[in-house]
């Protein structure tokens, strides 16, 4: 109360001031009246009336402002204030009048008479006008343009009524007044019927509302009967004095009465509103769980069964979780576990007849031949799947002890929350998958960066034109290429490391390490392979092997030694004879014999390189590329290509072969890694 006065002091001040002035003028006038001739300055009546008008006007403005600021449509606090302040004033006024009428025939003093009258005016005016604005807030709840317009007109009419303070000077004819009143009545009635706000109250709130409205109604009636029983000036004076507030009074009286009726008749519908409220709460609570970054499936199911039973007013229920072979029921409520499982078996059978439906309801379980005497409590039940389009997570089952317990509207609510739950669970699983995919891709990137450092770039070797192409099928490849030069020799090694992905990259790294040790030792080809085989056998996993082609070129005379450890053959284009030879000496892949290999396992091929000769090293990705007819490319076709492109530079030759390969496969996906190294003698 104090806070209220403090906040709105400046709003209430003008009206209160006007009232004080009014009171003082009346007092002064009455003194003048009694002591005729002894008063110095008579104050004309119209000044008094003017202040009365101001008083009403300022209350009206204050009321408008305060109620707009304070009231939310359902807030009952403002009504407390009005009832408290104004109502008390009126009741005191009424009582004092009544008592005085019984015990006193006349007012003992002018002062008390004036005080009594003006307190009455003060409290009545505050009360009715603020009540008007509270009702305005209620009426304009969910307002539209038409309603707001109507209210504007009523506003206007009420302000006119304040001018009726000056009626004694204006002498408005009675019939005009009657018309005015009828017009006001029409607006009042139109606005009164807008009680939409009633639908948004719970049962308790409606009861409270009836109580308050009733109290206000009683106050209004008391005003009518008790307050103005006797005034000396008579009946006409009585009407005129209360004309200004009459519209406001009429409105509040009618509206209060109407509200009581509407609230009373709407009491039964509260259950629907409350049910909707429960449903909304269920949905938002389930939402809140989903928005948490970590939630447990069981949390979701707990909420589902809790809200499902609450909103459906079910007697029992449970959730079935979809598992491969067995039925698992969780969150069983209202029934023993054993019985629930028995009942569920029957429901499972019933699902069979539903075909593709997502949910079903049975109103009278007795009509089902499946349910016999054992389950007498189970009169009606409802089951719905908790699933998204792709996957089924479980089922929600609700049961009632009475028949036909189910409403269609409930169906849509339950379907919504089950779908919601399924989507959230699915999202969570997808999210998990995407996290692990991200991690995998990260690892792949690390291995790829690593591999890029391991593989050599194209190097220039004096006397040779050299170019290589290396293409991975996946992110990480299995083909390896190493070129090493020392004073007298060039060592070229091409390899196909078994396995894919990150393992291949690591084996490649190990291979590189071994080669960096072995190449400088300048071993004879077989020796080299033998040592390499021992080292590789130690580090490779059981079922894996590495195929290798090792070409050792002596720089000065361009004498070549070639050893083939299980790898694809190499091609040699002999410029002088314009023909291509395929070198496929005997050999065995590394890691196949996991001990010291013998010389009889390998053949070493020696040949010389002449100017314009071309050596082509490759991996099986090239040879095994398939066309649309699923035929392999094969070495023969490659030999032809080499012959055709033999005059080109190493780079051009490589890209020409690649072009041909693409044309051959005709955009068929090349599944394997492939590597192509062209060495042309200048």
């Amino acid at each position, binding site marked *: 109360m104090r806070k209220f006065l403090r906040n709105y002091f400046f709003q209430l001040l003008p009206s209160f001031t006007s009232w004080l002035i009014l009171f003082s003028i009346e007092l002064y006038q009455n003194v003048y009246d009694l002591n005729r001739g002894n008063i110095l300055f008579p104050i004309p009546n119209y000044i008094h009336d003017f202040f009365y008008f101001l008083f009403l006007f300022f209350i009206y403005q204050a009321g408008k402002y305060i109620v707009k600021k304070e009231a939310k449509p359902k807030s009952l606090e403002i009504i407390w204030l009005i009832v408290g302040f104004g109502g008390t004033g009126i009741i005191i006024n009424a009582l004092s009048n009544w008592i005085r009428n019984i015990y006193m025939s006349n007012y003992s003093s002018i002062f008390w008479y004036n005080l009594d009258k003006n307190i009455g005016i003060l409290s009545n005016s505050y009360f009715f006008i603020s009540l008007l604005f509270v009702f305005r807030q209620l009426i304009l709840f969910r307002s539209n343009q038409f309603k707001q317009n109507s209210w504007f007109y009523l506003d206007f009419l009420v302000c006119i009524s304040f001018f009726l303070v000056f009626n004694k000077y204006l002498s408005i004819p009675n019939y005009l007044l009657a018309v005015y009143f009828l017009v006001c009545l029409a607006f009042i009635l139109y606005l009164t019927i807008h009680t939409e706000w009633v639908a948004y109250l719970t049962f308790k709130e409606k009861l409270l509302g009836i109580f308050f409205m009733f109290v206000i109604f009683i106050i209004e009636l008391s005003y009518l009967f008790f307050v103005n029983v006797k005034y000396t000036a008579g009946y006409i004076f009585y009407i005129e004095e209360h004309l200004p507030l009459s519209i406001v009074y009429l409105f509040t009286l009618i509206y209060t009465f109407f509200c009581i009726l509407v609230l009373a008749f709407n009491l039964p519908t509260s259950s629907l509103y409350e049910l909707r409220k429960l449903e909304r709460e269920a949905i938002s609570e389930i939402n809140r769980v989903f928005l948490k970054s970590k939630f447990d499936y069981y949390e979701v199911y707990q909420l589902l069964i809790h809200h499902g039973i609450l909103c459906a007013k079910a007697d029992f229920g449970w959730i079935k979780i979809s598992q491969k072979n067995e039925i698992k029921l969780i969150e069983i409520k209202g029934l023993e576990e054993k019985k629930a499982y028995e009942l569920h078996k029957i429901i499972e059978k019933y699902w069979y007849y539903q075909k593709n439906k997502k949910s079903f309801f049975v109103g009278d379980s007795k009509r089902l031949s499946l349910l016999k005497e054992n389950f007498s409590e189970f009169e009606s039940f409802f089951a719905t799947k908790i699933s998204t389009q792709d996957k089924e997570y479980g089922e929600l089952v609700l049961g009632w002890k009475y028949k036909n317990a189910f409403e269609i509207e409930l169906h849509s609510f339950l379907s919504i929350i089950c779908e919601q739950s399924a989507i959230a669970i699915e999202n969570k699983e997808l999210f998990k998958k995407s996290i692990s995919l991200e991690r995998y891709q990260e690892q792949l990137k690390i291995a790829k960066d690593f591999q890029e450092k391991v593989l050599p770039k194209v190097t220039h070797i004096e006397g040779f034109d050299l170019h290589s192409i290396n293409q991975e099928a996946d992110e990480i490849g299995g083909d390896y290429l190493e070129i090493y030069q020392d004073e007298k020799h060039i060592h070229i090694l091409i390899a196909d490391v*078994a396995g894919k992905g990150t393992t291949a990259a690591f084996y490649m790294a190990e291979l590189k390490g071994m080669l960096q040790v072995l190449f400088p030792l300048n071993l004879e080809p077989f020796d080299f392979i033998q040592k390499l085989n021992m080292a590789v056998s130690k580090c490779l996993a*059981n*079922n*894996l*092997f590495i*195929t290798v082609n090792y070409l050792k070129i002596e720089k000065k005379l361009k004498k070549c030694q070639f050893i083939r*450890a*299980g*790898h*694809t053959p190499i091609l040699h284009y002999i410029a002088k004879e314009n023909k291509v030879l395929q070198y*496929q000496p*005997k*050999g*065995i*892949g590394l890691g*196949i*014999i*996991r001990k010291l290999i013998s010389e009889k*396992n390998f053949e070493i091929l020696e040949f010389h390189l002449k100017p314009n000769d071309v050596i082509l090293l490759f991996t099986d990705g090239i040879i095994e590329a398939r066309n649309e007819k699923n035929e392999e490319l094969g070495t023969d076709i490659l030999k032809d290509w080499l012959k055709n492109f033999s005059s080109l530079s190493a780079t051009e030759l490589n890209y020409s072969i690649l072009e041909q390969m693409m044309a051959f496969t005709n955009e068929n996906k090349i599944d394997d890694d492939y590597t192509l190294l062209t060495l042309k003698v200048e």
Partner: protein
Amino acid sequence: MQVQVYDFNNYTSVYLIGEIDASSSVNVQMTLQDLLNQGKKNIHINCENLEYISSAGLGALMSFVEEINNSNGQMIFSDLKPKVFNVFQLLGLDQIMNIVNNHKDVVTFFEN
């Protein structure tokens, strides 16, 4: 990919049918391991209907060859299709495996 096992007098024949890739190679390996665990030391692999074998499949076979050699057993391959045989040759597997053209020669092989 199918694996069919037939027991004969002094050896067991394993028919590999179809294509062996990374996933089916596990199946092959398990079958062969079972045979070895049962104490069967003479194993004949009939590749009449083997269309294709990937490097994973080759790896499985060759590691098994080593194992059987270590347990004093014998393994022989027969009726390899030309393409598959080429692959074997390229890798040099023909140097460590017994390979015959016709399964009729298998009987003679195991008699020795």
